[in-house]
């Protein structure tokens, strides 16, 4: 609960990363979400990923919209600046922040209401702009903070807790992201830490728009036996084995060995490597059509394809498109930005 301050003292023998920081240094305040909420597991995975990647927390910016999911950034990375904006508008805030300072890591947290309904337009356009960010949707199929209304990602076959049928088709954000040109698209499950952490790391390392749709059951309103976003349902229908991924930082040695032809490696912009395994003809995540096919054939069977669904090796971001300077715009000096009186005289002369 928020009125219980989190103790700051920690065990002296906690492991430290290359920056000399412990996991605790990547935490935030105490969560105020319901006990067992999937969002808290995703929060833990973000903390773990940032810790293991040795990211300096103050070089990360956390951004969110409104809703249970969008509260989550308070619960991780208290040494990072955060911006809890207005409902559905996190992408525009992130666009501006990233324009101003391209050197920070941007982790956006949103929900299915925030992204698939009120913020659908901003989501689409952030993808189109190739905004360099990690965009995580904590997807529970319902509006938690307003007590359980259906969201636009709730499956048509999945009734509410009270048994009301959902009359509308679900929006599949991963399919949308692929169609709109997102460079990195993955789906995961808050209950599968082993899959989620490398995906978060890879998304952070990716230069361009990295989208992670994480199914995150709402224990209070959408975890009943007939829900397709419940812990039990997702565990039983998760096709996490479809492809498997290792995230290897450049300093590490590659030790895992898979049968030839079934793996591929992709070098990320920061020098780290993604090793993809269990590639087969059905699904190579470097192929957008195959990715869409995998999502759709699984959905038709009632199963959920998770893992890295699509990755484009052409890593380009908004700054490449806009041809902005290498250094952050917010670091430009006024002397460089203001042309001065002489240039103004020339402009006056042209207007005479």
């Amino acid at each position, binding site marked *: 609960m928020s009125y219980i301050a989190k103790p700051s003292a920690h065990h002296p023998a906690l492991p430290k990363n290359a920056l000399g920081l412990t996991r605790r240094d990547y935490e935030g305040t105490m969560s105020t979400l319901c006990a067992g909420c999937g969002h808290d597991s995703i929060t833990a995975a973000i903390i773990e990923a940032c810790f293991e990647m040795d990211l300096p927390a103050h*070089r990360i910016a956390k951004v969110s919209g409104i809703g249970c999911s969008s509260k989550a950034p308070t619960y991780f990375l208290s040494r990072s600046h955060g911006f809890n904006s207005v409902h559905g508008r996190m992408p525009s805030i992130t666009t*501006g922040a990233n*324009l101003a300072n391209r050197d920070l890591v941007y982790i956006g947290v949103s929900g299915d209401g925030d992204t698939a309904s009120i913020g659908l337009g*901003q989501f689409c356009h952030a993808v189109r702009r190739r905004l360099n960010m990690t965009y995580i949707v904590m997807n529970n199929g319902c509006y938690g903070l307003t007590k359980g209304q259906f969201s636009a990602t709730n499956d048509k076959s999945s009734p509410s807790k009270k048994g009301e049928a959902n009359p509308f088709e679900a929006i599949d954000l991963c399919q949308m992201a692929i169609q709109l040109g997102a460079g990195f698209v993955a789906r995961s499950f808050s209950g599968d830490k082993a899959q989620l952490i490398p995906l978060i790391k890879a998304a952070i390392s990716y230069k361009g728009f990295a989208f992670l749709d994480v199914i995150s059951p709402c224990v209070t309103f959408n975890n009943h036996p007939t829900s397709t976003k419940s812990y039990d349902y997702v565990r039983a229908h998760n096709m996490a084995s479809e492809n498997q991924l290792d995230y290897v930082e450049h300093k590490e040695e590659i030790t895992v060995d898979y049968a030839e032809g079934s793996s591929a490696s992709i070098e990320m912009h920061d020098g780290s490597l993604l090793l993809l395994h269990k590639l087969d003809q059905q699904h190579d995540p470097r192929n957008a059509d195959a990715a869409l096919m995998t999502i759709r054939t699984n959905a038709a069977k009632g199963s959920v394809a998770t893992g890295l669904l699509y990755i484009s090796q052409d890593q380009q971001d908004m700054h490449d498109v806009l041809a902005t300077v290498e250094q952050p*715009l917010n670091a430009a000096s006024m002397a460089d930005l203001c042309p001065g009186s002489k240039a103004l005289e020339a402009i006056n002369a042209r207007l005479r």
Partner: protein
Amino acid sequence: MSGINDFVVKFATVNGSGSASANTIFAKTLFRMGIPVAPKNIFPSNIQGLPTWYEVRVSEAGHLARRDGIDLMVAMNPQTFNEDLAEVVPGGWLLYDSTLARLWQREDISVLGIPIAEMCAAKWSDPRQRQLFKNMVYVGALTALLDIDPEVLKGTVTDQLKGKEKLVAANMEAVELGRAYAAAQFDCPLPIHVRQAERAKGKIMVTGNDAGGLGAIYGGATVCAWYPITPSTSLAEAFEKYARRMRVTKDGKRLYGIVQAEDELAAVGVAIGGGWSGARAFTATSGPGISLMSEFLGLAYFAEVPVVLYNVQRGGPSTGMPTRTQQSDIISCAYASHGDTKHVLLFPANPTECFSMGAQAFDLAERLQTPVIVMSDLDIGMNEWVTDPFVWDDAHAHDRGKVLDAEMLDKFKELKGRDWGRYQDIDGDGIPYRTLPGTHPTKGAFFTRGTSHDENARYTEDGRIHARIIDRIRRKFETAATLVPKPEATIRDKSGKTGLIYFGATTPAVIEALEQLEREGVKVNAMRIKAFPFAKEVAAFCDAHEHIFVVEQNRDAQMRSLLMTEADVPGTKLIAALNYDGMPLTAAFVRSAVLKELRPAQVAAE
């Protein structure tokens, strides 16, 4: 009344026929002859085919408000012949294309028929040229009728066609065609004509949107996000034009980022994100955009994020009159967003101030950590004004406000005697110290939010803390009132009881009207408001007068309301003088509004 260097010409043409550039050439040529001119483009919300007008008031005395009563009508659009004819003053002239001769039902004016289409058809074979050069033929005729220096005109044409030099000769042929015809057929020049003057010397001719975009460059803006909307579009485009010229490094990289957003919500969101991260960021929009941006403006107000908006106002409500001017977003901008919000507004009166206040807006936004809205309008924004040249003081240090870097964060307690907290009022001016993302490994991070928060940016539902925070923001607005541009008073009679308050684009009309009233023995003291929140001089001016006219271009007397609620001026003292037909204000309107109160008998007699 009209005469040499003092008359109004109006061009009635069809949108998309190429008349706009010919008309601009005409106005610019007179300006280059040293004569102040005030062109007003009265155009439809349409790309091709609908009627459009271009009025040019020529005034050596420097009266640059619109004036009713057309001395010379260039009637090129049969669709509007009747209304155009009616606008000509008795004794005036009407020039038209007499290829299809027409009987004009007015005995009291002179009709000048020139077979323009026929002349063009004989001269050019290409249909597009036949159409386009018609415009230059009537401009040519005007050089003879109004005694315009053809050499100056040629210079204007050459500048206008920069990059398309081979077109200059053809255009000048068209000019010559019209000129020769008029010189041969009519008694040239007409009694109304021009002569070289000095009054426009040193001035520039520019639109407020061009100037506003340039102001953002000089203000150090690097992030621009916008959504196309008339009449603000050309402001963002001007920023881009100047940025391409002056903000590109030797290796071709840009010291700016422009996002044409998916809508106005996103546009202001991008600007707020940029401001939060320490860039100078802005958006340009008009009334409907302000409505859409309101939720975000409340966030920037409450979370205290600097951002600059240019609102180039147009006719409302709703979609209203997108191509007409009004000052009708004053209340919606002053209080944009739900809850107790309030925003800093600047009121430029001409393009020169769109530049200077545009640049200043960024200093104020960062100093005050809040949105600052530059309240331009269509008249200033899209019409070319003859105005004072832009001035920049190279000694000006941009005010980045209270932003802490890593070193200052380390020393904060030592310097200020207490710990830093994002929303602590350390200095007693209501303005806290802010930090930017990425500044310090362990200090200065906080969570920006639109939910209620305490002095250390922590979420709170404690009503006492909430009240304390919004009270502190109110104090910040008291500080704002001391930092914004001061109003400008013109005192004609120290013991005078009548005052008049005005702002923005109505300035030329008000100045002209008050000068005329003074000649008629009516002395009115005036004050031009340049910003909101009001500087203390505004209330003092209202205190010093028994009744005060408030001249504005909206139906509901919005500035008057603001004076009542924010400067505690009794409404009984404030007389609304309101114009809201979408046309730039005339001096005649202001004069009659004043006289209706002060000399009702005289007005009735007139």
